[in-house]
């Protein structure tokens, strides 16, 4: 495939296909696709942070939750306009991301994971404690109905789906651009070796904070999509379990691949049902996830996207054994390759 196909035509075709789904699928299947896209965006927020910049966060469930809660509360209790509430929630989540990123300036690797895992643990407990504001354990409903504009001819669920597709597409394209830009290359350099990156002029501290803010912003958009889709938030939706699931999704999709996040999201949305459908006791599903994660970490460190990339490259070599001097696709941000 040439650059035009992989960079523009394929994503554009995918986007058009997704936009056509409300006229093809039944309401339930459409809602699962919307949920897949929301989860993919949440996984993408981790990919940006972990895969591209090499920082670890286990607290992204809290970012998604903070945005979902804030947008819901602003609409339900303060009668804000839904879109204004979403914008405020996303900006606030970015500020939260900036605050959480500060320890990252002095720490690296697993040491950053510790404060973020604390955030993921404390967040649902705090939601229950701040019952007056959050509705506590029982959760909080959006308390308004979303009414699509009449010219669309869509029902509310299909309208939310269309908004989801557009928002997710914008975020993916934005991230693909960032990864492919000078900033993206600087981030990869920071991931590989901070000192060397600094020697070459990369401003490590501001890069680290910026990527945390970007990542939190993406998680914030995912949180708003959650509010739109579910119209109900509760502490159990944003526990450490979600944080770990997002991490699993990222590992499976491929931590170095932007578009791999879609695979990770699909895994989170559909795998459990598929595993149960073949007759596995639901109690064993987490164990299966664990086993899968171990296999991926040992055998496919670049996830499904990496495996596909390796397969395509291998196939290319079989067909055209002598071809030298072509830059690897991984550096173009479509399927990014591990450089360390």
């Amino acid at each position: 495939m040439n650059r035009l196909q992989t960079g523009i035509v394929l994503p554009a075709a995918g986007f058009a296909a997704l936009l056509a789904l409300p006229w093809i699928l039944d309401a339930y299947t459409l809602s699962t696709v919307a949920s897949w896209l929301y989860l993919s965006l949440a996984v993408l927020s981790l990919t940006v942070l972990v895969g591209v910049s090499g920082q670890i966060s286990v607290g992204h469930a809290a970012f998604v939750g903070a945005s979902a809660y804030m947008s819901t509360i602003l609409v339900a209790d303060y009668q804000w306009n839904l879109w204004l509430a979403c914008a405020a929630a996303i900006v606030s989540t970015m500020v939260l991301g900036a605050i959480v990123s500060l320890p990252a300036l002095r720490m690296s690797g697993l040491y950053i994971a510790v404060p973020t895992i604390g955030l993921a643990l404390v967040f649902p407990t705090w939601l229950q404690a701040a019952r007056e504001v959050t509705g506590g354990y029982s959760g909080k409903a959006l308390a308004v109905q979303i009414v699509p504009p009449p010219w669309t001819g869509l029902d509310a669920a299909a309208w939310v789906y269309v908004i989801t597709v557009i928002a997710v597409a914008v975020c993916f394209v934005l991230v693909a651009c960032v990864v492919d830009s000078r900033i993206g290359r600087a981030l990869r350099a920071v991931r590989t070796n901070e000192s060397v990156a600094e020697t070459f002029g990369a401003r490590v501290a501001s890069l680290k904070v910026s990527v945390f803010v970007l990542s939190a912003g993406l998680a914030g958009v995912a949180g708003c999509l959650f509010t739109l889709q579910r119209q109900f938030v509760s502490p159990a939706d944003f526990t450490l379990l979600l944080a770990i699931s997002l991490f699993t999704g990222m590992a499976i999709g491929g931590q170095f691949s932007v578009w791999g996040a879609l695979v990770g999201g699909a895994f989170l949305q559909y795998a459990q049902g598929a595993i149960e459908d073949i007759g596995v006791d639901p109690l064993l599903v987490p164990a299966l996830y664990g086993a899968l994660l171990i296999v991926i970490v040992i055998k496919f460190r670049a996830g499904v996207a990496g495996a596909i990339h390796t397969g395509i490259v291998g196939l290319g070599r079989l067909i055209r054994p002598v071809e030298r001097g072509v830059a690897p696709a991984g550096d173009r941000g479509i399927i990014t390759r591990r450089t360390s």
Partner: protein
Amino acid sequence: MNRSRPRSVISALACVSALLASACGSTTTDDASGGASFDNCPDSASALVKGDTIKVATTGPISGPYAAIGEANRAVEAYFNYYNAKGGIETVDGRKKVEVAMFDDQYVASKAQENIKQAVERDRVVAVAVQVGTANAEAVAPYLNSTCVPQLFPVSGATGLVAEDRPFTTQLINYEDQATVAARYIESQDPKATVAVLYQNDDLGQSLLDGFTEAVEGTDIKITAEESYEPSATTVKAQMTTLEASGADFLFNASAGAACTQMFTALKGGSWDPQIVQGNNCNEANISQAPAGTTDNISGAAYLQSPLVDTEGMELFREIMESAGVKPSSTALVGYSNAQAAAAAISAAGELSSIGIAKAAVDLGPEPPNPSIYLEGTTFAPGLGHPLLNSYRVAEYDARSGSFDGVNGELITVD
């Protein structure tokens, strides 16, 4: 940088289109449930069940950290499977088997929503028969009421789950009523009693505390101390020390789970010996782990017989549970009793449709659907906007058998 410019343009365009789409787009209207009523329903809600099988759904934590509570769902499935094997349950249209689609939501509200949507839109269930969890029930109640699919007897004691404009949601019991029963019982024992309260700082504890505070208003009962603990707390010793200093005659226990056992452990170390009164929040499993000698003085609001007694109803319950491989615990009993109420609504429905079943569900009573598992004298109050059960017996805990015995307990009716 040049390489990324075309994509930047695309993203900018996409951003603009998204903003435009949002800005000129949708509005919101108040009232998410859309003011549900029996008269404002899609055609599917009044479609009669064809064939000899009725499809219902149940969702709960079958896996995950709260899988133990999923016993209630397994009990629901076991209950219907038992009667299916005997030819089904009686309905207005003859005997029907009840096919239960059991979903796992891991106690997560968004997963429960997805499960219920699948059940309604893909599996075309006629009703949701017993789901587990307050947040989960709240999350799907607007959807089920707008699609007119009955939400039959979720396992939740939360106040506010049922309302006049949620005619498709029915609830068996709530915690506020149980707190009222506890307050009335204390008043009957000592009209000028002093009461200390230990409550879990969540909706369960708060509902019990609110119900209790409201019930003692205007009486001579005095709440002399209130202490709360977080659901994640590993000990309640400090709170119990403060409560002990009040020297109250009664302790209203609004704790649950391991903290409840901890409460008894703290009592063991002190010199305070209050009479303990509660709802059914702290169950036999928690109390049986408490130190000996601390559990002689507990009374609780009860409506079901103990799962351990040898009555006809409980023997059948144990037989059904054991044949399905489900532990006949208090949790399973709650699922079982709610499933019985759901089955009673299906049997009593004047027409076998979603609307017919929902109408029958709010009209159950005044006798409980299957009196053989309820304590004698307990009654249902048919109608919208309140839980159906409106009377409880005060049960005494018997440390030797490890169960609450409410057979001869005082019968208290709540308004």
